[in-house]
């Protein structure tokens, strides 16, 4: 089959690789219909993320058709059109059974690798370095899906591919931002990032009853989409004092809930010396959210700079009595509900698929996604 592979130094190339195979009883093989780029992939393209090997296949947000079923699979048959959660979780451990599948103990083929990175094993992910589980990505004709009864979901007939695709990752991530931030009716909610996840966090805030939703970004094109498709108010951070503007939006109190949904790496290094010594970057959006949030409010971190950041305003958290939480999406818990909302037209995501490419041109799609975020919200690849 053909697949978009990572090569050394962050270069990408479409290659012929062997088809995936069933490796466990609960696996299915999915023929990919759509697979999307994601901001979480961007650090991989710098060549600075350890653990990727030349030939690893990228991509984790996808849907497709089941073409092969393992002997332990009960809920899927060949021919089912399914959306697959981007993270891999077992559905059987203590965390999964309590609705925290992104904290799954058994989502990796080598939990010790993830332990070394994060302190504990966490759910796996397709198309990421080995520490994320060792699962090939979805920018390919076929993908192996472990624990398929837990992580793959039939798509209602009325929901099109370009809508259902985002139930794989962006929609559950956005939902988690609003739900995890405990948005309540009447709340003022601020979302940092007008990408796919940020827009869907804003939409989730509306659906949970927020009274005002404000999206902060530095790309006018994305902010326009947030106004047009989500009905949010927007702040262009390039020419505005964000904190002052948010106080104005919220009667001087500050937003009740702040959601950080800025994809990719964190902000700049604090100094040239930090850059050379490889010290952590500053999490600009998280800092801004902590300073802006009302006293006793809630900050939910969806990205946090992807890896390690420094200069976190811990004192502000204490003095303002904030609740700061973070998380990766719990798609195994949220995807059925999100697909229902998509079928009811409460959640529309087609506009997020701003550019379509055949798989052969996937490298070009990534270049567009990385270099022209103003116009490219997500590049979507079609292998078939």
């Amino acid at each position, binding site marked *: 089959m053909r697949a978009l592979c990572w090569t050394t130094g962050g270069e990408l190339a*479409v*290659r012929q690789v062997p088809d995936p195979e069933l490796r466990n009883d609960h696996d299915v093989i999915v023929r990919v219909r759509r697979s999307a780029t994601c901001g979480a992939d961007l650090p991989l393209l710098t060549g600075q993320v350890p653990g990727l090997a030349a030939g690893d296949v990228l991509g984790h947000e996808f849907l497709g058709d089941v073409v092969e079923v393992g002997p332990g699979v009960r809920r899927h048959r060949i021919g089912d059109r399914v959306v697959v959660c981007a993270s891999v979780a077992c559905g059987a451990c203590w965390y999964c059974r309590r609705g925290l599948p992104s904290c799954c103990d058994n989502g990796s083929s080598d939990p010790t690798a993830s*332990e070394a990175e994060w302190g504990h094993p966490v759910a796996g992910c397709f198309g990421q370095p080995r520490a994320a*589980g060792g699962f090939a990505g979805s920018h390919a004709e076929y993908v192996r899906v472990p624990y398929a009864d837990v992580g793959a979901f039939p798509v209602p007939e009325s929901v099109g591919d370009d809508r259902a695709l985002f139930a794989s990752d962006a929609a559950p991530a956005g939902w988690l931002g609003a739900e995890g931030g405990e948005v309540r009716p009447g709340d003022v909610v601020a979302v940092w990032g007008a990408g796919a996840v940020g827009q869907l966090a804003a939409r989730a805030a509306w659906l949970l009853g927020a009274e005002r939703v404000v999206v902060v970004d530095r790309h006018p094109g994305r902010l326009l989409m947030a106004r047009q498709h989500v009905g949010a108010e927007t702040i262009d951070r390039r020419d505005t004092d964000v904190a002052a503007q948010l106080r104005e939006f919220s009667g001087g109190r500050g937003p009740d809930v702040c959601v950080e949904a800025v994809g990719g790496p964190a902000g700049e290094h604090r100094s040239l010396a930090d850059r050379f*010594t490889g010290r952590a970057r500053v999490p600009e959006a998280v800092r801004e959210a902590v300073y802006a949030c009302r006293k006793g409010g809630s900050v939910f971190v969806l990205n946090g700079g992807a890896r390690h950041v420094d200069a976190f305003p811990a004192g502000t958290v204490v003095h303002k009595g904030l609740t700061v939480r973070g998380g990766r999406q719990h798609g195994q818990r949220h995807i059925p509900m999100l697909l229902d909302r998509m079928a009811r037209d409460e959640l529309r995501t087609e506009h997020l698929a701003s550019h379509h490419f055949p798989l052969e041109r996937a490298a070009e799609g990534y270049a567009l996604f990385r270099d022209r975020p103003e116009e490219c919200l997500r590049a979507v690849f079609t292998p078939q």
Partner: protein
Amino acid sequence: MGQVGTVVAVAGALGVAAARAARTAVIRQRTRRARHPGGWQVVTVDRPPEQVLPTGAWPVPLRRLDGAVEVAVAPAPGGRGTELAARPRPHAAWPGLAAHLLGDDPGLLVRQALWQVKQLAETGEVLRVDRTPGERGPVAPTHSFPPRADGPPR
């Protein structure tokens, strides 16, 4: 002036290299400490003890280390299942391939075995990795994507 500049640049480069090396050493030390090589390694299995060690027998992943590790089992507090612990026996002779894989960190092998026991008890299988790029073999690219010259993307 040119020579002074060169000396300053070289000293700066050496300083940066030293800082990076020190940082790497600290991270490695932390990782080694985290693995706790000689002590008990513990995982909590979300199943009762009789399902973790049925009839008291060691499951396959631990059986491979038979004779080289001690194993202890206790109910986890709050109904969280079973705390399964293992640690290398002092001066144990590691069986088979394990002896070649150990290096200076027997704790890692013990820990991997414990996680496999846990996966087996909770999901009925040990999750296998997809085939690695090395197994797939090199194939000429058909379309490529050059890295950006001006640093990491934002």
